[in-house]
């Protein structure tokens, strides 16, 4: 069910500029449709790792929009370093994607 993220990690000096687009409905649990209220369904946890070391550990709520974007900068990065992103939602669904840090323009 969990769909692939789109991750870009480009090196700017010694910092990786990481941009992540996640595909997720992020339902607040208050939206009404013709068939009733759409149940709450949102990403609860986001973990970003740099070469296996956790650099961001986030706890989200349903206040975050559908198909959320997350941007962060990771210091001390080098070309080819691994950036791994994992999200877990309130239904227990999980998604992990990773990229290698590439050269910036």
């Amino acid at each position, binding site marked *: 069910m969990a*769909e692939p993220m*789109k991750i*870009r990690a480009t090196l700017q000096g010694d910092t990786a500029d990481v941009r992540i*687009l996640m595909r997720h409905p992020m339902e607040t649990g208050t939206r009404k449709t013709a068939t009733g209220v759409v149940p709450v369904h949102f990403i609860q946890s986001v973990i970003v790792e740099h070469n296996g070391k956790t650099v*961001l*550990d986030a706890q989200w709520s349903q206040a975050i929009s*559908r198909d959320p974007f997350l941007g962060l900068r990771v210091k001390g990065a080098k070309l080819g370093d691994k950036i791994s992103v994992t999200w877990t939602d309130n239904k227990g669904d999980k998604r992990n994607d990773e990229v290698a840090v590439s050269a910036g323009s």
Partner: protein
Amino acid sequence: MKKLRGITMGLVSALCLAMATSAMAQGNDLSVGRKMLMEDNPGELWIDQGKALFLQKRGPKNASLEQCDFGMGPGKLEGAAVRLPRYFADTNRVEDLESRLLTCMTQLQGFDRAQLIKQAISAPASRGSDIEALALYVTSRSNGMKVNVSLGHQKEYDMYKAGEYLFYRRSGQTDFGCVQCHGEPDKRIRLQDLVHMTSKAGAQEVAATWPAYRGAHYVVRTMQWRLNDCVWQMRLPDLKYATDYSIALTTYLNRQGNDAVMQVPGFKR
């Protein structure tokens, strides 16, 4: 609105604040905010969706769209979208991107045209339609390239002039033609900025930012959708999908926007 917990609040808000304060200092708040929303907008998630649909063998004929000719020969995508609309000999018509997709999806894949049209525009907050994803994918293959609509065949000249005429055509109880809202600089309806389409910059914005992610709908929208929505607002009847009327207007506007650098997905409210 529930409070955000954990480290996120600090990190994300610090990031936002840093970006916001430097950006605000530079100019008009609304346009700055919109630029921030445009970069890395969720529409990009549909590019991969469109690519998968393009390559997949589908329909009664179990074929992919790899042999579709968008004007530069079968399967050639780089630089194809920036030349649309254009004349196609096989249909003897000027076609825009979406009508060309309809042609290929019916001829190569065997899909039913009426069914495709019925499904072409998706519901808000849905997965989006096949055509929306395909249109975005094909256009994204021209990202970074200049819009280059040329007039060679008589029908291309006809469509351009007809589109120009239609841009200025007033009708209905609103007495609106496109120009009533899109003919002057720095205008807005409520807080929605109006593209100044009779200027070079405005026409270029039209030509280079569609398909686009429509924030309020949470899906990618296309030019056919945009024209349908304008016509709705003008109190005119339901505009059918992929009509000469819409292709003529698109030919006119895209050509007026020549030399714009394609950059999709755009971002609209």
